Each structure stands twice: as C-alpha cells, then as structure tokens.
C-alpha cells in the first residue's frame, strides 16, 4: 500500500478495512471544521461548529481504535493511503461552503449510519444521533442562507453548485466484510437525493444538474485519489507528530 510505511502490523492490517473510509471521513471533516475556531460569523456559531467537529473526531477515534492505533492511522499515513471522500477534505471556503458541505455530508452520514445501526454495527447507533443533529443544523442554515438576503442566496447557490461534483462518490459501494459490505447504496442515494431536493426547495435553491463526479478513471477519495488542498492539510496536521518520531504526547 502506498504511503503507509511505518505503521505497526495491526494498523497496517486496517488499511483495507471497510470501516477505514468512514473513520477518515470523520477525521478529515472534523479537522476542516476545526479551522473555523476563532472566526465564526457569530459567537454562538463557534460553539455549534466546535460541537460538530468534536462529535466527528469522537467518531473517528472510536473507529480507529477498533482498527488499529489511532495516532498511527491519523498521523503516519500519506495522502494516497487516506480513504476519505473528497467532499470531506474540501477547504471551508465561506460559511455557505462550510454549511452546504455539512449538509451534503451529514445527510448522507445519517442515512448510512441508520442502515449500519440496523445491520448491527455497534458504533453506528450513537453516530446516527450525532449526524442527525449535524444535518439538522446544516439544514437550518441552508434555509437561512438560501432564503435570506440576495447575497446569501448567491453564496449558497454557488456553494451548492461547486460542491456538487463531490457528492457522487458518496454512493460508491465500499466493499468488504461486515455491515458496511451489506449497505444498500441505491437506497442511500435515493434517500439522500430526496432529502437534499426537499431542503433546497424550501431554501429557494436549485438542485444542480451538473455531473456528481469527475471524469478521471483513477477514481476519487475511496481509491486514495484526493484533491490538491488535501496534501497541504495533511502536511499541517501531521508535521509536529512526524517531527518527533516515537514521542508520546
């Protein structure tokens, strides 16, 4: 596996586990939300964004702990060994980008974890409640931005359009043993599309008609193919840990 030298045998074994992409999604989006700390649009929203970030980080840590050693998996893999979807790694942009990213992601995560909970994945029952709240928060903001002022409407529509091409990947089946392998991805896509369409209608936004994924055959995040900003994100996230090999913190 490219970019995973230096992992213990246990963590290395996790690289093909179907739970790893889900853990990576949560970690990477949590990190992106953490970038807002100190400059949210209003103090109340500092609290909200941090709560979502902390929930996601908690999900990632719980999953990593199942799979291997959390810090090895977070800090010692290179870009190509990360399995998160490209949506999660997109830079925050303005507040509209952050909220639409959250809406796309959490609406999907809620439906996915609801299925996983039914399929008996033990961590999913807690996570589904969290993602329901995240989706609800993002939905409320989408309504307010979409149906707020002319400027906020334009920004929300721009965010909806520019992030659209990262949504197709969310429904690409993740193969492997266990509950993740049994997920009904078509039902997930249908449920998600309904939800987003309904929210956008209420928010007076238009559901984009452009393709939901890029044309590159190499694939996307689930294949370890990421967008350029992700490498810089990892460089920042990992540099301190990697500067002191073997140290504990």
């Amino acid at each position, binding site marked *: 596996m490219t970019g995973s030298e230096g992992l213990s045998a246990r963590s290395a074994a996790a690289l093909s586990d179907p739970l790893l992409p889900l853990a990576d999604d949560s970690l990477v989006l949590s990190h992106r939300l953490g970038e807002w700390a100190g400059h949210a649009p*209003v*103090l*109340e929203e500092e*609290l*909200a964004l941090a*709560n979502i970030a902390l929930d996601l980080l908690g999900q990632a840590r719980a999953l990593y702990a199942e799979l291997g050693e959390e810090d090895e998996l977070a800090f010692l893999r290179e870009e190509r060994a990360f399995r998160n979807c490209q949506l999660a790694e997109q830079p925050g942009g303005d507040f509209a980008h952050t909220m639409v990213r959250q809406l796309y992601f959490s609406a999907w995560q809620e439906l996915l974890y609801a299925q996983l909970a039914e399929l008996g994945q033990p961590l999913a029952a807690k996570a589904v409640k969290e993602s329901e709240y995240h989706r*609800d*928060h993002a939905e*409320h903001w989408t309504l*307010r931005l979409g149906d707020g002022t002319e400027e906020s409407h334009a920004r929300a529509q721009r965010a909806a359009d520019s992030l659209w091409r990262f949504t197709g990947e969310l429904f690409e089946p993740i193969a492997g043993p266990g509950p993740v392998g049994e997920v009904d991805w078509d039902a997930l896509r249908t449920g998600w599309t309904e939800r987003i369409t309904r929210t956008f209608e209420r928010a007076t936004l238009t559901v984009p008609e452009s393709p939901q994924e890029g044309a590159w055959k190499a694939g996307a995040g689930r294949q370890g193919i990421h967008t350029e900003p992700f490498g810089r994100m990892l460089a920042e996230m990992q540099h301190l840990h990697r500067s002191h090999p073997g140290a504990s913190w």
Partner: protein
Amino acid sequence: MSGTDWPLWEVFVRSRRGLSHTHAGSLHAPDAEMALRNARDLYTRRSEGVSVWVVPSHEITASSPDEKDPFFGPAADKPYRHPTFYEVPEGVRNL
C-alpha cells in the same frame, strides 16, 4: 458593522427528568429555532440538561424592584402558612 442585531433570548434548562426548568442564561439568535439550537450547544454541552426552553427576553414580564414592598412584603407576616409555626407535643408522630 451590520445593522441587524439578533434579539436576546433567555434560556431555561431541565437538568434531569422530574426537575423543573431553571434559568441558565441568555444568548442571541435570529429566531426561535436557532435560539433553541444555540441553547443546546451552549448550555448543555456537558450534559447539563435533557430539555431546553427559550423565551425572547422582551416577552418576559417581571415584577419591578420598585414594587418590592407591596409585592412581597405582605407575605412576610403570615408565619402560620409554614408548618414550623405550630407546636406539637413530643412523641406525636406522622404529623
């Protein structure tokens, strides 16, 4: 500076079932739905509550401090409303 100052809301939190909601503090929000969510994020992040109420601050009617005496004074001279007012002979139980 934006001219749209969000209104102030008072937050009441029920810390657990069986207890009443008590005043926790206040916050700003554009509307009731967001106020409720902001209250949840701010005042219950350490599991301090199981239920939250929000009320626009300007909707609360309160007694004025100027009315302190006529409002609350008259209750002070009615000790017979309290059980400790009554003497009961020693040894009498369940009273």
